[in-house]
């Protein structure tokens, strides 16, 4: 197992290297540069200011040299500083990451807690009224774009009822109650889409397993229905579900971009959007790289989980 993990991690090295080229290249392909973005519509005509900024930001050096300098620094853990506000990139990420992690993990947990039982219920009672209701709700959840759902929620809970704030973030360590008040709506909205999707997938996986011979065998030898479903069927159904949850992580990262903007949360998604508009290359490159590595590591984690769920899977 240890060897397997080490080997998988080694395989990641060339992938990450290619990713650095992509992260660097893609940001450089954006039209314009940080100096133009900072000067803006009112000031970009000022050539003196423009050149001064370009020099300060090191943008007048040849592109390959810029890449190699950046790569060299990144390898030693130095991601440089923001081209926009000179904040060290790692500080910026460190400040934003807890927000996105809290948002992402809570909404993932919420969607698993809701969707797994509901999906199982719908599968066990397939084609019943319960199944129909679950299907209707989950299809509705899938059909509604999250930003629209977010605006509806803000209208109801902030505007009409005045129960929850619609924007901002308070760290958990500073004020746990205020933290939960601020994060509740975003978590539920971000979780809603994932939940709706997962319910469908859990139901489908469960239905397939329930049609298997060993389930019929279990029932035939007089096992209690709870054991049939809970022990034999559920565990086997989990394998495709875990894969799907793993794949959801990437989508969840995308979802935070939208949710953090609507709810004005200072997370990684907001930072990514701002960095694109500001042409903040160092921050943007670090985010692209970090997100990609996170997805890679999550995929590895999913592969490892298979072994725990299914003893037939061996890591050699």
């Amino acid at each position: 197992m240890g060897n397997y993990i080490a080997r998988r991690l080694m395989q990641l090295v060339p992938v990450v290297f290619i990713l650095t080229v992509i992260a660097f290249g893609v940001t450089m392909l954006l039209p314009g540069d940080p100096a133009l973005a900072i000067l803006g519509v009112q000031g970009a005509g000022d050539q003196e200011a423009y050149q001064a900024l370009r020099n300060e930001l090191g943008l007048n050096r040849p592109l390959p040299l810029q890449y190699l300098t950046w790569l060299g620094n990144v390898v030693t853990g130095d991601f440089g500083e923001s081209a926009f506000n000179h904040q060290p990139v790692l500080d910026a990420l460190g400040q934003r990451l807890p927000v996105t992690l809290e948002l992402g993990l809570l909404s993932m947990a919420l969607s698993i807690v809701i969707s797994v039982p509901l999906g199982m219920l719908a599968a066990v009672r397939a084609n019943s009224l319960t199944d129909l209701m679950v299907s209707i709700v989950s299809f509705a959840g899938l059909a509604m774009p999250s930003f629209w759902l977010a605006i509806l929620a803000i209208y109801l809970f902030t505007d009409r009822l005045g129960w929850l704030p619609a924007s901002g973030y308070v760290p958990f360590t500073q004020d746990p109650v205020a933290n939960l008040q601020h994060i509740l709506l975003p978590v539920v909205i971000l979780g809603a889409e994932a939940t709706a999707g997962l319910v469908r997938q859990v139901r489908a996986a469960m239905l397939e397993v329930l049609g298997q011979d060993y389930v019929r065998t279990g029932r035939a030898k007089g096992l209690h229905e709870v054991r049939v479903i809970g022990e034999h069927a559920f565990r086997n159904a989990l394998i495709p579900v875990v894969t799907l949850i793993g794949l959801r992580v990437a989508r969840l990262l995308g979802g935070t971009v939208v949710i953090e903007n609507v709810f004005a949360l200072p997370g990684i998604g907001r930072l990514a959007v701002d960095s694109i508009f500001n042409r903040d290359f160092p921050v943007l490159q670090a985010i692209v790289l970090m997100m990609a590595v996170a997805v890679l590591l999550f995929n590895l984690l999913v592969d490892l989980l298979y072994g725990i769920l299914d003893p037939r899977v061996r890591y050699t």
Partner: protein
Amino acid sequence: MSSSRNAANQPFRLSRRAFLALSAARASGIAAAGAMPLRAGTTRAAQQSAKRGGTFHTTISGGSEPQTLNPTLASAPNSNYLMFEPLIRYKLVDQATSTYQAQPALAESWQWAPDNLSITFQLRSGVTFHDGSAWNADAAKWNFDLMMTNPKSFAKSFVTGIDHVEVVDPMQIRIVLSAPNAALLANISDASARVYFISPTQYQTLGEEAFGEQPSGTGPMQFDSWVKGSMITGRRFGGYWDKGVDGQPLPYVDASEYRLIPQTATAQAELRAGNLDFLPGLDPQDVAGIKANSDLTFVSPPATGGFSVCLGLNQQQGAFGQNPKLRQAALTAFNRDAILKTFGFGLGTVAPHPYWTEGVIGYDASLPTYNYNEDAAKQLMSDAGLADGVDVTLTVIQRPLEQQQAEVIKQMWDTVGIRTTIEVLERTAWIDKLTSGGSFDAAFWRGIFPADPDQLSQFLSTDGVSNWSSYSDPQVDQLMIQARSVLDVGQRAALYGQVQQLVYQDACLATAYYAPDMSAARSWLQGLDSDVNTLWTTGVWLDK
């Protein structure tokens, strides 16, 4: 202290009573014009019972974060967050006659030299920066030098006519000009929204970068925290120089919170829920909802900002370049009234003379303009030898208002044979395209409300930094320089009249309408005051 060349240059010291009377007159004038009056003139009685305490919650205007809190180096104008102040405040006294007046802030009084080549400012005494260092002539001169010489200074264009600044005595500075400059007071006032004063001591101790994270000024709020991506907060500065109606130092509120909320729908929900006291930068379509809400007040004093969407036809190259008849056809097919009706929501005013609107020196409604006439436009097309039509591209920034207006103009132009392709680019890509000499035929950008028409040089002069469509008329360049050096308002107005005539003849620029600056406040927010291009929030208090 007397020199009466024009209203804008009159040095004076208003008594509090005269000031309040003036504000009252203005407030009633605004009321007659249909906008909501500010309470400056009407709350004298109420102000005597101004309540202290609480936090002033508002948003960072424009919804995007500044790159630094140093007001001289911040790209967004009006980045003062109640922490910094100007030398003088600039007020619109009478919109119909374009009469402006400068009022003391960090300067107590000022006097022009007889040759108009220098002006001496008596600085306010007893003012300290938040770091404890004193506001004096050395500090003032140091600030001007920073604005003039730092290559990244965004205040540069407002101090360009200044040759140098002298320290006369510890509380007096003399600004020496390279040529007489009628726009100087407007330029260095809060109307430019750029010329604010910071503590040289703090700047030199911390260095340029760190100062931007932990600034120090003279304003009623001192820097408290900046949570990136979230908010900028200030706390009451105990040593502030100005006093409230209760005789105690301002500000009335204990703290300020400028929050960063990118989505307008979210920000408005926070305002309605009472989590914000003031929300700047409304879209016109949202105003009706604000006005209908009895908990909220619509705030839109004249000349506090606003913008016009300016259409520029590339004079140098492309389909419009070197083809004046086609340009005339395009401007004749441009239906201002229809655009105002569609996008103004009853709030804008039609702007037939590009950049000049009511209240700007030199504005004259009787000057010639292109009036919408489809048949005349078609005739001009055949005069231009383009009876079969012509293909053009219209390059606009990716913003809903610009994109929608582009659609409307495309329809107007298509009808007369100017077949239009709309090219939508994200802001920086748009800037990149237009500054790198890329080929485009027509483009949109936003014009400002100029506190002084000299500020329009950036749009109209051949080398202007915001002259996006490569407009160039040597006579206009000449007249803009001349109008700056004449101090008589009547003469200046005549010269700017000539500029507008030439702009008309060149047929490169058009504005449809001028959209006023629009904000919303909770009804409990009191003590808001307005200057040209900026709202003065030093005296706000919460009546709750």
